[in-house]
């Protein structure tokens, strides 16, 4: 199972590719809308990439609750832990 740091790194890499930024410039506190300039379509595409990568489902409600990079990492880490504890 991946630890929190590994999940964070993978999330940053997926985001970096999506928004065409250097991965080093993507911080946990970065705002998706303000700092990463993500629009709703790139959010949907990112969610798809994350779902494929981590083998989880991200419902629309979860998607609308995430505001920062850390929110995404927390959500995914939680989902992975739930999945493995079942």
């Amino acid at each position, binding site marked *: 199972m991946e630890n929190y740091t590994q999940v964070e790194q993978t999330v940053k890499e997926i985001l970096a590719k999506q928004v*065409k930024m250097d991965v080093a410039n993507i911080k946990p506190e970065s705002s998706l809308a303000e700092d990463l300039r993500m629009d709703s*379509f790139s959010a*949907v*595409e990112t969610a*798809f990439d994350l*779902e494929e990568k981590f083998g989880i*489902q991200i419902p629309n409600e979860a998607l609308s609750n995430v505001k920062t990079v850390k929110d995404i990492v927390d959500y995914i880490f939680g989902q992975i832990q739930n999945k493995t504890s079942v």
Partner: protein
Amino acid sequence: MLNERRVVITGLGIVASNGVGTEAFWQANKKGVSGTDTLTRFDHRDLESKVASEVKNFDPTEFMPSDVAERVDRFVHFGLTCTQMAVADSKLDLSNEDRYRVGSIIGSGLGGLLFHEEQMMQAYQRDTLRLNPACVPRITPNAVASHIAIQYGVLGPNIVISTACASGAHAVGEAFRKIQHGEMDLCISGGAEAPLTVFTFGAYNRLRVLSKRNGSPQEASRPFDLNRDGFVLGEGGAVLILEELEHALKRNAPIYAELTGYASNSGGHHIVMPDPDGADASRVMSDAIKDAGISSDDIDYINAHATSTGANDRCETKAIKAAFGKRAYDIPVSSTKSMIGHTIGAAGAIEAAVCALAIKDRFVPPTINYKDKDPDCDLDYVPNVGREAKLDTVLSNSFGFGNCNACLIFSKLNE
């Protein structure tokens, strides 16, 4: 006045199985080089036809940003590549243009098939929640004109025309009209198609329209020949920069030829078969000639639709005789598809580019693989070897499944 504004071709970009780039393509066409070979794109064990005109040695990232190339279907790769070539060829600096007066009008019969088929497999085999969220914008046929508009900042008409095998000709023709009528001054017009996918190839195979000459693939596409047995599915694209004449002269643009006439009609007959009398095909040629304000005596060359199917080539020959009378026997008629197969929605645009090149280079490209005369096809098909000729006015036919007919007339620029 409806026809006051004149339209010229100031740039070309072509990707086909026998040449990537206008010069490579044109030299191959002049020499009669076939781009057809054994199908390699996917496993074809259960197909009766195993020949295709594939574009090889083509890297889309040479012609567009890599993140764009990754996110679009192969038919958009062809459209964007041809646009890059044509804009450069035309010496066009779009930053100097009123971009609301520039259009993007492209033909595609089938759209983003490769991605469509992959994603359909996902939906049926896995689950619809695993579908890629980019399915809709990636599959839709209008992706090609829109990506061109996005990449080149085009703000005028953005339209994709889908009329099967005539899509590219209709796109060029409708763009011509919009410039003539003053709706725009410039247009990136053409066609793009990437139909070499398992489902689509299999579907054409089941329609029994594809050649089964698997033992000698280069000879499979043989329009007008007695032993033709169907067409060869091909892929590629072409873009023509169409421009209002005064606009082109003002910026010293290179001019290949003038687009002088266009007509479209329908056979209203059958969803795949041509009208056996060719009445609709004959009429569309006569209407285009009338639109150009010339007479049938002025046509020096016909770039035929000529697919290499029994029915098309027979009916088209009959239609040419009906439109031109006895003179039909004196006009060279040749088939680009003999060399690059049938590229469906791209075909009419590639053939329009051939007409512009033929006028500029004063050369009639051949119909290759012509060996035995069919008594129903007895015109001068420029068999196997091209020839030099003074070409003032040439005509290009395109006939789509469902009897979607289009005809374009090109003339040497007479200032």
